[in-house]
């Protein structure tokens, strides 16, 4: 997918663990891992709101567009 999630880098910059972020935003570690590894298909605005609030960043810091072949819609 041409959308890249920079959660890993931001967590490293904030010196915050995934467990701590999970506790703060109320999203399970499993779901944050899906987001972090780029397997997520969609992100709710409420999740984005919580992530930006706790990480002190903008949505654009979290996600980035990388030009490439369009991803096919999977079954």
């Amino acid at each position, binding site marked *: 997918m041409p959308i890249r999630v920079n959660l890993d880098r931001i967590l490293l910059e904030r010196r915050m663990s995934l467990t701590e972020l999970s506790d703060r935003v109320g999203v399970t570690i499993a*779901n944050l891992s899906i987001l972090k590894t780029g*397997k997520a*298909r969609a992100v*709710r605005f409420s999740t984005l709101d919580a992530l930006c609030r706790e990480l002190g960043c903008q949505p654009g810091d979290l996600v980035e567009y990388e030009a490439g072949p369009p991803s096919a819609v*999977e*079954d």
Partner: protein
Amino acid sequence: MRALGPGSVSSFLKIALDVIYVALWVWIGLLSVVSLVVLLMSFNPELLANRLHINGNVDELTGNGPLLAAALAGWALMSGGWMAIVERLRKIFGTLSAGDPFHPDNVRRLRLVGMILVGLEIGRYVFASVAHAIAKDVKVIDGSFTLNTWFSVLVVFVLAEVFREGARLRREAELTI
């Protein structure tokens, strides 16, 4: 009306499926036993003549024995197909009871139900043709074309596609954070 739990339509359907499942087992068992008995009787007509009082031609009855046994075996086979359908429907219902009706396995199960229905219908035509070729006077099974069956097959395949889309949306929902 409640979707799940006691008193709901699904609980009534579940009971109906369980009853049909048990009844089919009994029916297949009976058919198998009767087929065997008819086949054995046809090879030994004295058994019929000595132990049973039959009004009519015993030779005719015993002569048609193998055909009757084959017809009964055909019925048992068809009942096996129905059993396979009911089993798949029970599994689909199991996922509904578990609150996950759009499980990807249900797409496969529904397609299989459709294919079994097609197989049963084609099998009926073949069986009727063969039976008619062997014994023209005896009508063992009705081999006429029934539009309702093919319409049911179409409905099942359409539902399978609906479930496929449901399974895709379920997957999307799972990966929405």
